[in-house]
């Protein structure tokens, strides 16, 4: 049996983190036995993300790498993945994760990548299904995470022990994801008192944590707290983001009658507080308009694991539960001074409604109360089998999640809206049914030894469905099956110059399913008011305005889950402490979520008051006026599965051994990404124009792609020098983004067919192009609209240093990003494009007492 082929430690950890550490003991023994061959980096400082040696592509980030990068939030760790470069913190908006995606590829309507990346903290996934916070204020939309996944600003890094980011095909033990898996394992066990104070150009961060030994044998407790105060622009203290977190974790490990029993429990609090106020000195009447968004979330997680101490077929069973609840309050206050006299549609009932007028000056209060609750239960079991040639694990488990928002939702006075022409109405979140998902999985992970060859096979199937959903939904009890297979073949090692050289090749493929969240299953109603009688008489008592209110239900009962098919092939060479990994991948998701427009028809009456004499009958009423009937085409956007996300790329990581003498290691990582974002279905479009006094009476259906191809290619060279004698670690990272580009996909602009106000669909004809009205449906594009926009090289030199003092009790660290940067000018359409960069720096002190 080749010792190289042993299941590497990180691979065996594909279960919940705590379970792993127990099960790993056995592997650790084997690792020790093979240390001499396995690599000289063992036990050494690793300040970059390490490429996993497991069956699929994953990046491992340990404590040292995190300490070296000096993060403020989880967002900063993304830099360590192949394909990413350092970015300044942007705390003024939601920080979403887009794995394996060209950096500039994040237009609206393609949020499934971030929504479909699952964050699993100590075995419990972060559930964002019941997140519903929203605002009609377009300037603040970027702060919302509804339907977009996890906001990485809210995840502190200081109580994290290690992170594994699975970019490839994760084990079927993890579900409700399409694009990736982020496994976070937090610190546990007895630890010294740690404190960290960090300051950078935007923020200050303070952390304190300790692990205590408790009076009972095998029991330890960890406490940690973190506070971050970030100003989006350091010159402006009216806009800021604050985070406070607190966590208490208990770990009990006992042997009872031949059974190992482990009980982990944690109670966690995270609060995020956004503030954005205007400057009263800039408004004439000194009003303060403000936006605040507070999220206070608490969670309580438990894991119970039992494991017989003897080696038996039954290896372990675990029960993991997680309960989380958040109190979210978004509040906006705005002094609205209208520029015109707006009618005030306030009706919440469909049909004919008389409406009043908005005041010219008022104070608008807008509150959104969200109370998302989620619970998670997972029962997992493992079985171990061995024979001469085959050994491995069988895993099976069941999982149930429920998410429900108990919030009062959007609460505001309809007569004082944030904006005139408001098409929404106050909506409680607590009448939205709970989202429940039931899943099961079974997986075999085995190691097969044939001669000096080792095959490592992971094959599993996950089944999942939404339950408790209204039977009218396609998704109600609809089972989805995710088969996933990963294979790694370790060739017999060769000896080159007295040292073993090991080749590994691998491949994997699998389906990944993400169920729609509440915002997609239960979208807000759309309110439209069509004018039936507009009679603003000079005499106030005769003024009358009547509208017909249409309430368009935007629920799409045929919405499906988003499914991503991934495949990848990988190669890995290890020699003398050097390691090179290359992965080629492709991903294809044709049913990602998107708000797409649908044609609806609004039929209403037009009352003619031209012959009406109010001096006789007073204010006109729709009951005594002649009228005609009109039908208007209304475009209503609703959640659909019509986005397409295709990803292709090559990721590579080369890490050398630490060269003796100069004590420096070189890590080169990078990636070429090609991301195609487009629509997978034809799209309806009606130009927003008025022709001959009316909106267009037609809408066109186009099968043109409404999307772009994005590409990027980068390499990051990191030289890190570790000088134990000086307790000093210095790294220089040269980050080259060789190019980024985007190109809009070609469109003809000619509709395939069109619909008239009667709802009849017609094929597009050449004659239609001559009609004054139908021809408005032809969309024309500039010749250069489909040119590739390519931005050449941008190079940044980032410097980081950490120094330890006083028996490692005090650590000081600093970093400067873009200490030097090279961004050559380039020409585009005859104009010189200049790019400006400025350094970003921070420093910190760490105490360990």
């Amino acid at each position, binding site marked *: 049996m080749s010792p190289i082929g042993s299941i590497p430690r990180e691979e065996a950890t594909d279960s919940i983190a705590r379970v792993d550490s127990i099960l790993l003991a056995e592997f650790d023994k084997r690792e020790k036995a093979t240390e001499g061959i396995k690599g000289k980096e063992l036990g050494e400082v690793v300040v970059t993300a390490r490429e996993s040696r497991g069956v699929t592509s994953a990046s491992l980030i340990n404590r040292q790498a995190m300490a070296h990068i000096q993060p403020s939030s989880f967002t900063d760790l993304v830099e360590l993945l192949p394909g990413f470069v350092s970015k300044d913190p942007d705390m003024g908006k939601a920080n979403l994760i887009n794995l394996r995606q060209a950096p500039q590829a994040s237009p609206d309507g393609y949020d499934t990548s971030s929504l479909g990346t699952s964050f699993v903290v100590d075995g419990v996934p972060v559930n964002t299904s019941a997140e519903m916070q929203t605002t009609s204020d377009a300037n603040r939309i970027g702060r919302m995470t509804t339907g977009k996944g996890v906001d990485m600003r809210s995840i502190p890094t200081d109580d994290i022990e290690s992170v594994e980011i699975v970019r490839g095909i994760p084990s079927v033990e993890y579900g409700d994801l399409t694009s990736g898996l982020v496994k976070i394992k937090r610190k546990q066990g007895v630890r010294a008192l740690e404190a960290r104070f960090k300051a950078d150009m935007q923020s200050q961060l303070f952390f304190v944590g300790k692990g205590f030994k408790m009076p009972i044998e095998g029991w330890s407790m960890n406490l940690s707290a973190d506070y971050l105060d970030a100003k989006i622009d350091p010159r402006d203290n009216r806009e800021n983001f604050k985070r406070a977190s607190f966590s208490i974790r208990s770990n009990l490990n006992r042997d009872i009658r031949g059974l190992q029993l482990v009980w982990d429990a944690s109670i966690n609090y995270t609060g995020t507080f956004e503030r954005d106020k205007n400057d009263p000195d800039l408004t004439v009447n000194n009003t303060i308009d403000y936006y605040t968004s507070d999220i206070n979330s608490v969670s309580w997680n438990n894991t119970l694991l039992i494991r017989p101490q003897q080696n038996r077929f039954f290896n372990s069973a675990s029960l993991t539960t997680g309960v989380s609840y958040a109190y979210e309050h978004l509040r906006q206050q705005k002094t609205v001074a209208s520029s*015109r006299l707006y*009618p005030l549609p306030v009706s919440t009932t469909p049909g004919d409604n008389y409406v009043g007028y908005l005041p010219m000056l008022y104070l608008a209060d807008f509150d959104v109360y969200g109370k998302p609750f989620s619970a998670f239960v997972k029962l997992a079991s493992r079985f171990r089998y061995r024979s001469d040639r085959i050994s491995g694990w069988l895993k099976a488990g069941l999982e149930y999640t429920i998410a429900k928002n108990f919030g009062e939702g959007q609460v505001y006075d309809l007569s004082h809206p944030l904006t005139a022409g408001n098409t929404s109405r106050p909506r409680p979140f607590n009448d939205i049914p709970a989202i429940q998902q039931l899943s099961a999985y079974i997986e075999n992970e085995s190691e097969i030894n044939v001669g000096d060859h080792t095959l490592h096979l992971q094959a599993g199937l996950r089944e999942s469905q939404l339950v408790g959903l209204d039977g009218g939904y396609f998704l109600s009890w609809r089972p989805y099956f995710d088969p996933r297979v990963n294979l790694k073949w370790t060739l017999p090692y060769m000896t080159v110059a007295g040292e073993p050289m090991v080749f590994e090749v691998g491949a994997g493929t699998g389906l990944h399913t993400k169920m729609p969240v509440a915002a997609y299953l239960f979208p807000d109603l759309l309110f439209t008011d069509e*004018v039936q009688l507009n009679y*603003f008489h000079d005499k106030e008592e005769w003024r009358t305005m009547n509208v017909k209110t249409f309430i368009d239900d935007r629920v799409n009962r045929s919405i499906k889950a988003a499914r991503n098919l991934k495949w990848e092939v990988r190669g890995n060479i290890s020699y003398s402490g050097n390691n090179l990994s290359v992965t080629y991948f492709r991903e294809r998701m044709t049913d990602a979520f998107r708000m797409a427009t649908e044609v609806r028809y609004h039929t209403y009456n037009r009352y003619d008051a031209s012959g009406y004499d109010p001096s006789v009958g007073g204010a006109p009423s729709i009951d005594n006026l002649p009228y005609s009937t009109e039908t208007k085409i209304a475009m209503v956007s609703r959640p659909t599965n019509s986005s397409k996300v295709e990803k292709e790329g090559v990721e590579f990581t080369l890490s050398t051994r630490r060269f003796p003498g100069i004590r420096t290691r070189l890590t080169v990582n990078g990636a070429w990404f090609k991301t195609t974002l487009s629509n997978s279905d034809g799209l309806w479009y009606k130009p927003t124009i008025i022709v001959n*006094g009316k909106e267009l009476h037609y809408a066109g259906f186009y099968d043109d792609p409404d999307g772009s191809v994005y590409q990027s290619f980068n390499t990051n060279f990191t030289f890190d020098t570790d000088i134990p004698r000086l307790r000093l670690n210095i790294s220089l990272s040269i980050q080259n983004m060789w190019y980024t580009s985007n190109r809009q996909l070609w469109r003809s602009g000619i509709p395939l067919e069109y619909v008239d106000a009667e709802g009849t669909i017609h094929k597009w004809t050449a004659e239609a192009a001559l009609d004054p009205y139908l021809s408005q449906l032809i969309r*024309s594009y*500039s010749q250069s609209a489909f040119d590739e*926009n390519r931005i050449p090289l941008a190079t940044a030199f980032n410097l980081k240093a950490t120094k330890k003092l006083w028996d490692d009790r005090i650590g000081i660290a600093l970093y400067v990003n873009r200490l030097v940067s090279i961004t050559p000018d380039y020409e*585009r359409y005859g104009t010189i494009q200049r790019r400006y960069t400025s350094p970003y720096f921070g420093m910190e002190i760490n105490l360990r007492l």
Partner: protein
Amino acid sequence: MMKKISFILASIAVCAGFVSCSDNDEPEEQPNLITLQSTFPEGMDHYSIHFQDMTVTFTELNTRQTYTATAEHLAASLNIFLPTGTYDYSGIVNYTQTLEDGSDKELALRTVGSSVTIAGDRDLAITWFKSTPSQGLLISEIYAAGSHNAAHTGGIRDAFIRIYNNSDVTMYADGLAIVESDFVNSRANDYDILTPENDRDVNFTVGVVWVIPGNGHDVAIEPGKSITVTDQAIDWSAQVEGALDMTGADFEWYDDVALDTDNPSVPNLDKWFSYSNTIWIMSNQCNRSYALVRFPEGMTADKYLADYKGAYDYIHPATGKQLRKEKAYLIPNEWILDGVNLGNREMYVRGALASSIDASYACISEKNSDPQRFGKKFSRKVAMTTVDGREILQDTDDSASDFILKAAK
């Protein structure tokens, strides 16, 4: 079309030009000799034409100093001494043409140019065009900024346009269109337009076309009288202190959506085209152009919509990227009765209208987005008052000199 004429006597640069420094008598250091090489429209050599003085005025953009060259006749070549700097220029030659019926008509040639760099002796080619002041209906007032809103943080839409009969006969306004430019008269929107149809010397590219309803003899405007067209014909003074009462307007541009009001006693304009399917508002920044348009006989909305589409390609000045604007229509320049460019000194580069329609622009303020602009309207100067008390407004197709700013209330 244009040809360089050399008929003007021994035009060997008589250069009767002299330099005048408007507020500074100190001798300029090393002025540069600039030779203006004029190109005139065809037909100017007709015996029936009698020219008066020719003047070209240069304004240095930083110092605002002005320098004027004059000639006592039409000079194909004219000299002027200018200090080093960047200049805008405008020129005028008034002339009298004797018509076939024996009557004399006062006419003018004009020239304008902007951002000319003078750093040494040079020749400067300038092109003259016929100025065609409108004789009948014209835009006499534009109130685009609106009055202050209730919080004094912006403007309201008590905006209006006034159409005046500058002739001595009753004229009819129905069928006329009021149009707004699609282009913005601002440096940030100074696009390089690639589509030839959208060349401002050929067509006026518009984003909205409002038409005064009627059958040609329904909306009479007597000599010296005007009609007012407004956004919402309501008594704004009852809503916001200091605003106007627009209930007396003759027409409102009513946008048929639940964001607008409709006064039943004020008729509405017809909206042939608008780039917006909700409300249309005048440029409250006062940086677009407006024109009064007489369609050719027999023009209908359907025919116009089918035949005068104005989508165009342009180069964005900042990114250099070629882009496409879809929602636009064309108004051929010969349909335009009167047109006015609006702008502010800080951002104005050129107007959306051809120079022959408006040689300059009516300026709302020195700086961009000046909050002082609210409550100010553009008003045409009175050229003379007739014996019977009728005012004749000045219309030299040069808005900078034709319009003044007045308090709207």
